[in-house]
């Protein structure tokens, strides 16, 4: 049902979006809900419900949203760790959903992921050497001494002491473990790394170290990042562009300064107003959102944000709305801004 739409936009790619490394078009991921043993699938968890964005080479795109909004799922579907329900992901102009198992394996060296939890993302029965060796082994990197040198080099690059090569993950701190995860992702010289909340499980002091490391590596190896997070301060620091996700869809997408200084979508405004401000005397508008995020099983009609939106108008509950441009590189999905729509 969704595939046809994906094919349409696939054509659009060839005549335009040129320098995008990653192009996500109408991505859908529904998880079937089964009740009982024999009952049919009646409902779906709509974790990712039509997400589109593109990331240019060398850029960092921040993907923010509350927990449960589908940002992690989106990251995993892009890498095909989960099979998509619909849509297309173009990596260097090639739709990764069309690739065979073997082709997918080959392209994986170019797109890697760093996980949130540095404890469960490293196998407790493998030494650091084994863990960083895995990608090299899978992709037939020359063995023997060369490989060991490569492993040590990678450890140094991410700031680990190569003398710890035979240690097990449990012998490291959380920050060090995350460095191991980064080294593993880096081993195959990828061009794209999806960072799935890479610092949210770490202490604040360690967070900045890892962020600095990631920025250093980006310069050094010309990496492109998709940075998934819920911490706006971190996102603001590292990202070039930010997409805000709400309930499986992107509601606003803009360059980082524009998004933080002139947010358009009420949800973005609410998120920004919830970040702690260093200056306690600064007067500012606080927006409190009533209620909880609705269940991704029963998504509200119309604009999916309308039940919690403090500025809702009549049309919000009736008509769904998708992203449209309101300025150069600034897109928003909100009925309040329809008048600002620009044609680029």
């Amino acid at each position, binding site marked *: 049902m969704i595939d046809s739409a994906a094919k349409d936009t696939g054509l659009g790619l060839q005549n335009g979006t040129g320098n995008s490394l990653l192009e996500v078009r109408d991505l859908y991921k529904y998880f079937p809900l089964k009740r009982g043993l024999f009952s049919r699938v009646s409902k779906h968890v709509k974790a990712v419900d039509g997400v589109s964005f593109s990331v240019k080479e060398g850029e960092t795109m921040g993907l923010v949203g509350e927990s449960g909004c589908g940002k992690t799922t989106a990251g*995993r579907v892009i*890498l095909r*760790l989960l099979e998509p329900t619909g849509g297309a992901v173009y990596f260097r102009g090639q739709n990764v959903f069309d690739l065979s198992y073997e082709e*997918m*394996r*080959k392209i*994986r*060296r170019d797109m*890697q*992921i760093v*996980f*949130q*939890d540095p404890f*469960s*993302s*490293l*196998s*407790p*029965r*493998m*030494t650091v*050497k084994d863990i960083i*060796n*895995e*990608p090299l*082994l*899978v*992709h*037939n990197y*020359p*063995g*023997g001494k*060369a*490989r*060991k040198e490569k492993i040590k080099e990678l450890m140094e690059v991410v700031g680990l002491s190569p003398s710890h090569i*035979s240690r097990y993950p449990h012998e490291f701190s959380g920050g060090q473990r995350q460095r191991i*995860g980064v080294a*593993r992702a880096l081993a*195959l010289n990828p061009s794209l790394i999806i960072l799935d909340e890479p610092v949210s499980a770490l202490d604040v002091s360690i967070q900045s170290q890892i962020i600095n490391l990631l920025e250093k590596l980006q310069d050094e190896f010309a990496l492109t990042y998709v940075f998934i997070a819920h911490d706006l301060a971190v996102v603001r620091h590292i990202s070039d562009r930010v997409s805000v996700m709400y309930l499986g869809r992107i509601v606003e997408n803009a360059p980082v300064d524009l998004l933080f200084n002139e947010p358009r979508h009420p949800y973005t405004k609410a998120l920004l107003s919830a970040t702690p401000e260093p200056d306690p005397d600064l007067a500012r508008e606080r927006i409190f959102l009533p209620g909880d995020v609705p269940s991704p099983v029963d998504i509200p009609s119309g604009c999916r944000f309308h039940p919690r939106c403090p500025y809702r108008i009549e049309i919000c509950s009736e008509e769904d709305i998708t992203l449209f441009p309101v300025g150069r590189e600034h897109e928003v999905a909100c009925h309040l801004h329809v008048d600002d729509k620009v044609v680029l």
Partner: protein
Amino acid sequence: MSQIQPISPDKMSKRDYYLTRLRLTGKNFKEFMGKMSRNPSGMFGLIIFLFFVFLAIAGPYIVPKDPMAISLTDRLLPPFWMEGGSREHLLGTDQLGMDLFSRIIAGTRISLLIGVLTVSISIVIGTVLGLLAGYYRGILDTVLARFADLLLSFPWLIFAIFTMAVIGPGFYNLVFALTFKGWVGFFRLVRGDVMAEKTKEYVDAAKALGQSDLNIMAREIMPNILNSIIVLGTLRMGFMIIMEASLSFLGLGIQYPEPAWGSIVNIGRDHMLSAWWISTFAGVAILVLVLAINMLGESLRDILDPRLRRIE
């Protein structure tokens, strides 16, 4: 003429890989033995168990008499410390004049062999099926899990008696009958563990690196569930030895005059009042071996996988 093959880099790395593995295993082994030595009941179990293993291997060479030699003039002799006993027959003889001491030593081999064989085969079948079912889920998992539930719903002994009655007694039939239900325990353990491990991010990481499913199962998940398999395997071995003895006692397992502990106990039953030693010593042998294995298994569990304590 064949050319001399240069050592390929990949072979080198494989050697390298296994050498590191071996060294690490050595390190782990030392650590393990350290913990073991601080666990007296485990040590006790291990020593007794190794003693029985020695008996099982060396048995035929160290028995003082042929365990199946009939000597009707020496029927039902008591152990050497009792009146009428002699040092010829340390633990006395049975009603055909066969030397009980030699028979019990020879029986060790059968008991341990049954235990090791049934548990090994069960582990192989249960682990392979458990990995596949837990990893891929779907229809395969549903079918296997229901079949396992079906087998589980029969009581062990009744199931074994029924199977043996159908296929007849004998060593290999016994192994078959015990394995037929034995794999289920390992299947359920492995399946559950795999389902739990599969949700961890290191499996996703392996997938993102392009690891094949087979490699993910064998290299990533297996090492993380191996401990529970070892623990269950040890505990299950004691149980299998009891099952063998029970079936042999009922005349469905190893047949008299083959020297199996269960059948020795059975023969001694007829002479319980006059020659109590026949059943008693064979029974004690079963008791000591199974006790030792269970003590070993329980301390292995405490050391390797404490969370299994819940399952018992």
